[in-house]
């Protein structure tokens, strides 16, 4: 698209939102169509694919044994990594993670960690020495906006789908046994991202909207409606009043999105 066309279109998107409408027909508080598929990568301990409109994110989990952190010797370890895979967008380049993929990984990580979604106490094999490490790899396959919500949803869906190997301990060695147990989960945090355009808040901004929003606010909501993580992004600001409004919207939308996990 030429720059001129882009600008005309951006102005149009902005004017529509100002009037409470969106280019793709959604209301300001509507998500795009959401599809969640669980268990599609058999080699992974757990996996899920989320389609949020044309945005596509695949999350796979792997479980390995490792050492606990010194300050939590009785708890398993959770580690989240995100790859903005170059086939997802002409703007993504191969190479070590940049600030965008690091921020994405850390937002997804925080939503799960702060809500204590994984029951890490049940992942301890030998206190202070050996625990299970849960690797959550977020793989962005197509970028059409709002990677945060799609990634967070796919991560929780993959964790709910994750199986742990049964094991026993003989002479300090972990011996795998037949069968699997589901990964012990305590909650299902949902992250809802809102964009601010002028004095309007929109839910689930897609790619072209992301290019004109002043700022975004991503809010993780726990099963009980409490807030468990927040991240403001972008070069603009929110008023305190907008922040309170955003948390209300996020709590409502979280209920809606969480249903996608009950399939």
């Amino acid at each position, binding site marked *: 698209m030429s720059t001129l066309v882009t600008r005309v279109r951006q102005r149009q998107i902005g004017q529509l939102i100002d009037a409470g409408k969106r280019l793709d027909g959604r209301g300001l508080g509507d998500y795009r169509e959401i599809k969640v598929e669980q268990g599609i*990568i*058999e*080699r*992974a301990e757990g*996996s899920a694919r989320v389609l949020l409109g*044309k945005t*596509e994110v*695949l999350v*796979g*989990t*792997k479980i*390995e044994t490792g050492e606990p952190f010194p300050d939590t010797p009785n708890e398993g370890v959770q580690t989240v*990594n995100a*790859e903005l*895979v*170059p*086939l*997802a*967008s*002409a703007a993504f380049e*191969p190479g*070590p*993670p940049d600030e965008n993929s690091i921020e994405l990984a850390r937002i997804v990580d925080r939503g799960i960690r702060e809500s204590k979604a994984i029951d890490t106490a049940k992942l301890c094999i030998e206190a202070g020495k050996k625990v299970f490490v849960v*690797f959550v*790899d977020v*793989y962005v*396959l*197509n*970028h*059409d906006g709002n990677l945060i919500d799609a990634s967070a949803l796919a991560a929780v869906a993959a964790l709910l789908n994750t199986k742990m190997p049964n094991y026993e301990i003989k002479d300090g060695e972990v011996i795998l046994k037949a069968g699997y147990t589901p990964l012990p989960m305590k909650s299902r945090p949902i992250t809802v991202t809102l964009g601010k355009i002028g004095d309007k808040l929109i839910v689930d901004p897609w790619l072209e909207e992301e290019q004109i929003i002043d700022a975004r606010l991503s809010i993780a909501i726990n099963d009980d409606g409490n807030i468990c993580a927040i991240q403001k992004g972008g070069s603009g600001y929110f008023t305190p009043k907008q922040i309170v409004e955003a948390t209300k919207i996020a709590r409502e939308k979280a209920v809606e999105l969480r249903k996608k996990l009950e399939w």
Partner: protein
Amino acid sequence: MSEKPEKLIDKKGLRLDGRKIDELRPVKIEVGVLSNADGSAYIEHGKNKILAAVFGPREMHPKHLSLPDRMVLRCRYHMAPFSVQERKSPAPSRREVELSKVIREALEPAVFVEYYPRSGIDIFVEVLQADGGTRCASITAAALAIADAGIPMRDLVVACAAGKIDDKVVLDLMDTEDKVGVADVPVAFMPNLNAVTLLQMDGILTPDEFESAVNLAIEGCKKIYALQKEALKTKYMNTKEEVEE
């Protein structure tokens, strides 16, 4: 670790997954699966699940990599951390660097690179799940992604391996056969031009066995070639329908 099976071919001549000696694994191909790439394709070859995408022809960055008389191909073959038994670090391994190179060199003979001087295309291959033979399935998918991007080609490139397990030359090794078997011979082929564009070998083969393996792999290629063309046609039909609606 799974235990090594003693026998890879049973008395009936069937392999661990029930296939005959010259039988391909199931192959499923879809073209045009990603909205942001200029061309894309998805392949399931056995349990391999692989996405390929092409961006371009476009200006090269950095510019000094471009060539005055031809288009430059770049290729990245990459495995998702969860695609294999033990989690793979996302940083490219030496194996991935080598495969990126041989895959690129397997695709290049098919592309009319002289049509697009000073420009380049990027070919990205992501292995979402690996099951033996990922380089071959990657080539099969990447050739379709190039075609889907509308880049003129001499022919599609299609790839398949043959190899030796127990004492037999067989088609299309899956993961366990690849690891436990005697030899593996991946071959990429342009059927219309009778041209082998990738050839590697691991293991030990007599000259005769090697010749049989190459020929068997080429037979496999030809079968997958039909599926490639089918997938392209399906994409074309759907696009046509959309346009006509």
